[in-house]
């Protein structure tokens, strides 16, 4: 399987010449395909995750926000998998396979991260990201 071969339909999509104004095209995209709504939902979910990682102080909640970001990526994968299925693309199911791998990695990450957190709490009695300053210069 050639990587370049996989990208051909995607590149063909991006080479289209759009017509009409920006607003018209946006409304058309929303009314034409449910894919657009799913992409926006995924973006919202990802942004909420980023906001959580940057603003919360509790390490456990930071981990949960990372899980939110991973889920947003999963939703994007599945949305495009669905889109390519109906376009007759033979690689359409790659998106769903990828999602399974993402879930596996998320499980490994959660197990290791929480074990680290447990060790940290045992040694320093805190899970606040602001108070973990051992490596701070």
């Amino acid at each position, binding site marked *: *399987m050639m990587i370049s071969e996989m990208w051909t339909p995607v590149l063909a*999509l*991006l080479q*289209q010449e*759009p017509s009409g104004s920006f607003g018209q*095209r*946006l409304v058309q*995209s929303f009314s*034409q*395909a*449910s*894919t*657009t*709504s*799913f*992409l*926006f*939902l995924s973006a919202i*979910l990802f*942004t*909420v*995750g*980023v906001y*959580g990682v*940057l*603003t*919360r*102080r*509790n390490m*456990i*909640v930071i981990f*949960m*926000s990372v*899980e*939110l970001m991973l*889920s947003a990526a999963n*939703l994007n994968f*599945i*949305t495009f*998998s669905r*889109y390519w*299925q*109906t376009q007759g693309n033979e690689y359409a*199911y790659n998106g*769903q*396979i990828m999602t*399974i*791998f993402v*879930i*596996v990695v998320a*499980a490994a990450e*959660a*197990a*290791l991260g*929480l*074990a680290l957190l*447990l*060790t940290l709490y*045992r040694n320093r009695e805190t*899970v606040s990201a602001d108070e973990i300053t051992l490596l701070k210069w």
Partner: protein
Amino acid sequence: MTFEQILFILFAGIVVGGAASVLLQRNPLYSAFSLITTFVGLACLYVTLKAQFLGVVQIVVYAGAIMMLFVFVIMLLNIRDEDTAVDPNRFLVYLTIPLGAILLGALLYVVTKVNLAQPTGDEGGTVERIGTNLLTKYLLPFEATSVLILMAVVGALHLAKREKE
């Protein structure tokens, strides 16, 4: 408004509401429960996208196993509530605005440039199709993840083990 659109709005509301609640709760345990709600909503969305197998995996692995781990650790550590959920004084808050703007800009650019067609048909990601793909085309990555999981389990055991006096 079609039936699919009504379902999408319902599940999207659950997902976004749950995600916002994860950030707004002061007690991490309530955050974990909100996250479970989000994952269940996402599983419903996967089913509407004809990814039935992944919808079930999402509930069993994410909402079941991973979140149980989170709840377990939260209860084990017995963490007290924070004063404020979101710290308004962290300078990092201001990083989120350009990041969100970049994401929104990229999304609007792609969505207005590309003519996406409405997906139709009912093929879907059945167990058979995903299993065939995993055990033929993706056999090597599939086996590699089993080693990864094993390493994660051994590492977690070693880290969480109480040191001998």
